[in-house]
């Protein structure tokens, strides 16, 4: 294989020598996330022996599992060079419509369908404005974040909409000892990881995010791919909203309030490059666990909520700086 790796002997000025393999492996944002994760686990277990109990970590994770699922798709959106800040509001509006429908006597499967379709429609609205009207996605989704949350508030007022007893508590249902939301997250991670890492669809997401003009010249249908990503974002957000409804037992307009920041934090901590073209599902997967352990650890250690927020903010800023530094180092 070395003949293929080094087809032509290079002179120094034609091409820089490749980096040693250990550097390629070690100097990656995901490695940073993994190291932080191990450190966090170690620190947390000093705070409380609970953290040595895997079941405890899993139960803690169910509190963030819905956001983590959406963060996986958000990772793909960011790699494609766009962003979506509306998913938490989408979760709330989808869940409100779903809860409203089932309260009005519509059978549960149809009510769920209504919620999911609503999510898709919200994703489509984002997509149309970004792709057809060519408005930057950060502006579009800041707008729709407010819009979707506002509609949810109009529909629900400040009442809680109840869901039936039997529907409550999906987070307490275990399969092979693992809560169902965590299983969904694991399966999604594997599937999306394979999509992003091994398919043409995934490859083209990276290419669009690296240079959309070049991608279009190479015949890559960037608009179609972005449309797909925004629709997937809407669908997964709606599903996450309905799962949250089951976990909480009721729906209010403020469901998932502020969740978009946690999702962005997961993607950034996992080494997704905010300007697109770089990032992995594995990184976001690790970052989701890291975040859960850090925030649960702080709660166990009785850190004030306000201070917890400061810590999360610092994490976000540091992760962005570190990711940038790593990428600029390997870019040359």
């Amino acid at each position, binding site marked *: 294989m070395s003949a*293929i790796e080094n087809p032509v002997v290079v002179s120094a*000025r034609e091409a*820089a020598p490749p980096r040693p393999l250990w550097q390629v492996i070690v100097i990656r944002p995901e490695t940073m996330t993994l190291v932080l994760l191990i450190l966090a686990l170690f620190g947390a277990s000093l705070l409380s022996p609970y953290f040595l109990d895997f079941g405890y970590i899993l139960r803690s994770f169910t509190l963030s599992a819905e956001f983590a699922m959406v963060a996986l798709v958000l990772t793909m959106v960011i790699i494609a060079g766009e962003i979506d800040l509306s998913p938490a509001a989408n979760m709330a509006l989808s869940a409100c419509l779903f809860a409203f429908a089932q309260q009005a006597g519509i059978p549960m499967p149809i009510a769920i369908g209504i919620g999911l379709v609503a999510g898709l429609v919200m994703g489509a609205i984002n997509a149309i404005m970004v792709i057809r009207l060519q408005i930057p996605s950060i502006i579009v989704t800041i707008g729709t974040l407010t819009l979707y949350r506002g509609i949810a508030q109009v529909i629900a007022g400040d009442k809680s909409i109840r869901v039936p007893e039997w529907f409550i508590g999906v987070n307490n249902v275990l399969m092979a000892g693992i809560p169902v939301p965590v299983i969904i997250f694991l399966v999604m991670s594997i599937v999306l990881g394979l999509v992003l890492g091994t398919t043409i669809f995934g490859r083209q997401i990276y290419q669009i995010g690296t*240079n959309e003009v070049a991608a279009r010249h*190479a015949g890559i249908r960037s608009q179609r791919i972005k449309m797909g990503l925004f629709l997937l974002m809407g669908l997964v957000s709606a599903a996450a909203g309905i799962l949250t409804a089951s976990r909480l037992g009721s729906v209010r307009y403020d469901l998932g309030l502020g969740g978009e920041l946690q999702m962005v934090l997961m993607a950034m901590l996992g080494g997704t490059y905010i300007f697109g073209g770089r990032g992995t599902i594995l990184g976001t997967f690790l970052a989701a666990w890291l975040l859960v352990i850090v925030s649960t650890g702080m709660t166990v250690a009785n850190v004030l909520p306000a201070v917890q927020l400061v810590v999360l903010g610092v994490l976000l800023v540091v992760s962005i700086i570190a990711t940038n530094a790593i990428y600029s180092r390997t870019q040359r």
Partner: protein
Amino acid sequence: MTDTSTSDRPLLAARGISKSFAGVEVLRDVDLDLRRGEIHALLGENGAGKSTFAKIVAGVHRPTRGTLTLNGMPVEVTSPIVAQSLGITLIHQEPISFPDLSVAENLVLGRADGGWLARVPWAEMTRDARRLMDLLGVRIDVTRPMRGLSIADQQMVEIARALASDSRLIIMDEPTAPLTPKEVETLFAIARRLRDEGRTIIFISHRLEEVRALCDRVTIFRDGNKIATEDIGTLTDADIIRLMIGRPLREYMHKQGTTIGDVALEVENLTLPGVFSDISLTVRKGEMVGLGGLVGAGRTDVARAIFGVAPAASGTIKVNGKPVTIASPDAAIALGLAFVPEDRAVAGIFRTLPVEQNITAAVPGKIAPGGFIRGAVEKALASDSVNKLRIRLASLRQPIGELSGGNQQKAILARWLLTDPTVLILDEPTRGIDIGVKAEFYDMIGELAASGRAILLISSELPELLALCDRVLVMSEGRLTANLSRAEATQESIMHAAVPGAASRQGVAA
């Protein structure tokens, strides 16, 4: 160095200048004397070290070793500002300016006197700016913003800035590349006047005829070494090229007589209002058709329209005789079209992605039957291309941005050859490429035509069009103004049709 009289002493003497970037030596022990009142050309392939040398003199880079002596005094040029105070100015090819500030304000940038609360002397500033412009003999309203000035005028402003600080040494790094022939003439006239005032000019260019027309002496670089410094009159073009590439010039400028087949691409009355109109042309299999004209004549826009990047408003396109609609590049690719764009960095490469992904980007079906990428297939396809086109790289997994421009361009060509195109549109394919690699490119393009592909070659280099093409079409101001056979095509006939107003204005069916 023997110090004789002041007039014989060189303005600038460089001794043993070396420079390494990240351990790679790009300049090795360069000794060079620049005389007062000469225009001195630096020639060499890309990466030969000429620009690095110029940037060291201008204070952009620090040398790793070596000394610079200005007027007999050793100097440390630690930054462009220091260079400016020493009377050394670098004129950028595409000047960096503050587009919303006025020309006069741009002229005095970096020369603010007094404290940060000092009053801005608007009236004096404008007056000084006018005086400088008059001195240069250019008509630019100094109160207008920089935005919207032509590149030639922006260069004039930079030159005026050099005069404002009374620079004795002015470095021009490929100033003519973005200029029209007329603008080049103006620039040369000014350069000669500056020389006659006793100033020294370093002139970097790829164009031999320009060097010959303008320069007194020439220094040739190759692989980071200074190869020779001679009076321009003592060297022939062949000598210069031999010194630059280190081997005798191979006779690349010829076109094999190939069999020309059926019409592969036929365009009729293609129009995009305000950009180009009534473009009709045909390209046959095995035929190489050149598309000449000045920058901005609409050549690239026609290519983009044919390829579906920015489709035309009206007109028909036929591929292999069948009328087709091409609304996007993927439709064009499906029809067997390929397009190597002019601006590699913007529309060609994925800078941070591996070379292999760049090569296979347009053939997803080949590397991933069923949607899943097969690593081995991709690697085989990519390394096959690398060998065929002699792309020089360290690893297929290397980000393409680490390769030299010529090798990046080869990779983009490789991408399109994998699609096995019937029609290949090349837009300035050899721009910014070393002479050595250029020759390889000409060979490859020739072979592609010989293998029965139809080739439309957009080029601003007349020798390229004349040597390679079976026919040359010329555009001017959005219209086709000439369709010249190989026998009719000369530098004069092409330029005559290319310059607005020189040719008859009726459209030409090609």
